[in-house]
């Protein structure tokens, strides 16, 4: 197995993580816990399949993903910002809601319990090298630049400065005349859009929506956010690391060196270790989870 093939496959696996983790960083840096990433991704995947199926183009699929993701982000925003509901409870409920809603509409729209029909994806179907073909997908490039761009946004722009202020010390932000609620809403919406694109990538890459297709990727992205200490570039490295471990496991499947279940555990165990602070403590934004 060549190093190039390994790298390409790692990047392919990492794209949904990178996008969802970018959404998670944005959301958590403005102080809203990103437990709903899994649900946002799944709604994005469903929206992408719907848009692509009815619009006949993956670009409309992307619009569908954004629409579905933003509707769900809206639910999240209303509950946590307007009504100050507990963010942990809302996050868990959102994940349950999206699983149920996508299954319901899968039956309503496609009359299937498990998957949508085949939908158009981004090009490269007839190309010889399937691995390279997937890079014709613009979402791959969005995924690759998402976290570096977010780093620039957070650290080089007035919006980023305010966002960080709101996430660390909202009282201080208020005294500077920042509208905390409006800023958190912007952060949530941007985060939701990014996470739903992560889901869209999955659906368009596999040319269909399947029930529960995000399969815990939202939580791996959340793990990457924490393991990367909420710093965009560190988070990007964490995503690539987790994806690399997965690639390795796929490549070594025949060898049976380590049971696959133990490879699956890597992101979660690393995150728990990071939180415990054994090597370099992971410290959350100070106002995370506190609305009022």
């Amino acid at each position, binding site marked *: 197995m060549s190093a190039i093939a390994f790298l390409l496959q790692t990047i392919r696996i990492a794209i949904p993580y990178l996008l969802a983790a970018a959404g998670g960083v944005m959301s958590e840096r403005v102080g809203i816990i990103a437990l709903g990433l899994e649900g946002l991704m799944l709604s994005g995947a469903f929206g992408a399949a719907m848009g692509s199926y009815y619009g006949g183009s993956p670009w409309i699929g992307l619009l569908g993903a954004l629409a579905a993701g933003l509707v769900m982000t809206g639910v999240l925003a209303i509950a946590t910002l307007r*009504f100050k*509901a507990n963010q942990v409870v809302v996050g868990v*409920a959102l994940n*349950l809601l999206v699983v149920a809603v996508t299954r*319901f509409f899968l*039956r309503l729209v496609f009359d299937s319990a498990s998957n949508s029909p085949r939908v158009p994806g981004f090009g490269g179907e007839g190309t010889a090298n399937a691995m390279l073909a997937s890079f014709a997908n613009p979402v791959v490039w969005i995924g690759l630049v998402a976290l570096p761009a977010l780093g620039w946004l957070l650290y080089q722009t007035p919006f980023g400065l305010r966002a960080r202020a709101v996430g660390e010390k909202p009282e201080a932000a208020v005294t500077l005349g920042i509208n905390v609620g409006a800023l958190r809403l912007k952060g949530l919406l941007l985060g939701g859009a990014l996470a739903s694109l992560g889901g869209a990538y999955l659906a368009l890459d596999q040319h269909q929506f399947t029930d529960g297709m995000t399969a815990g990727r939202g939580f791996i992205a959340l793990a990457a956010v924490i393991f990367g200490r909420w710093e965009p570039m560190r988070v990007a490295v964490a995503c690539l690391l987790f994806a690399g471990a997965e690639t390795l496991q796929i490549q070594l499947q025949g060898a049976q060196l380590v049971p696959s279940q133990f490879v699956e*555990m890597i992101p979660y165990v690393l995150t*728990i270790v990071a*939180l*415990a602070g054994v090597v370099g403590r992971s410290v959350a934004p100070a106002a995370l989870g506190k609305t009022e």
Partner: protein
Amino acid sequence: MSEPNTQMKSTGELLTVPAVPPRVAGNTLLENTLPIIVALAIAAVVGDLLILTFGESPATVYRLLVEGTWGNAYGIGQVLYKATTLTFTGLAFALAGRAGLFNVGAESQLAMGGFVAGVVGMLLPAGTPGALGLLLCLVAAAAGGATVAAVPGALRARFGASEVIVTIMLNFVVLALLNWLVSAKIHVPETLHTPPINSGGVPRLSDLFAAFHGSAANWTIIIAITAALVSWWYLFRTRGGYELRAVGLQPDAAEYGGISVPRVIWVSMCMSGALAGLGGLNFVLGYKGYYEEGFAGGAGFLGIAVALVGRNHPFGILFAALLFATLSQGGLAVNALVPKQLTDILTAVVILAVATAVPEVQRQLRAAAANALAAFTRASAQRLATQRPSTKDDA
């Protein structure tokens, strides 16, 4: 929440001047029940809309839902069976919640409890007396769940690590571990379940009441009700429970009052995990007689909904467990007309609605109460100016 004697009056009454000062901030019955009623109403409306999009009549679907659950003994049995597991996971979330902790790990604690109980039951020699076998399995299930929860408890107590994140991450770790243990080590060939238990089985309700025949309802429900009673007694009638609630309400004040906050955090997480672990008995000892991969099936997460609707009170949880068990079983009953996921959507809507309605309704009620208190103060001042008021102050 020892029942306060100054029970909140209705909002209308509060606007007039009461004889006794109204309680401005407290866990009163109205503050706890009103948001639930609002939330259920919202869920019912959402349900109507979804049923209409599917082109069915809401009345027909709801009637089918009730008939398929509470309309016959089999349906009731299934609801009771599902409510049993949900009672345990609901209690688990509530107990941690009373200590100010979010145990989002009930799913894996439940699975681990069931697994350990199944293994102990399997290892017992065939001649073991049933009562002894049950006792050993019970202890094993509680210990299994507590062990899983001890990790986030210790990390939170020692390092301040967020128990929310650690419990979520640990869910994946523990479920993967159990998956490996069952698929690679102990399972009946061609299946994903362990060999059957030799002792400790819990009889079905149908053994005594023939009408329940075919339903999974079993006597674990007695253990669940006992767990609720013991939780209530512990929380509201013991020193440990008092300390637990004190830490949940105001950790700094608790610390100042001489309570070891880290110890309370660790102990509450372990107890919470033990409760979730006991839930595994329902499936493993009461239903199948073995541990099967994936038996938890989301009951751990539903425990959050149960605790939320039950307002973290053991008796409220018994009610809420029946509600969500009804929704879960009801989905199967209506599946011919609308997708069974309808009730899953309603479950999620109830959680969201309760989570939003509780702070909102409480804010409204407290604003009303504060207004009333101000009015009361003004009125008292006027009364004092003329004569001595005959009210007794219970503050």
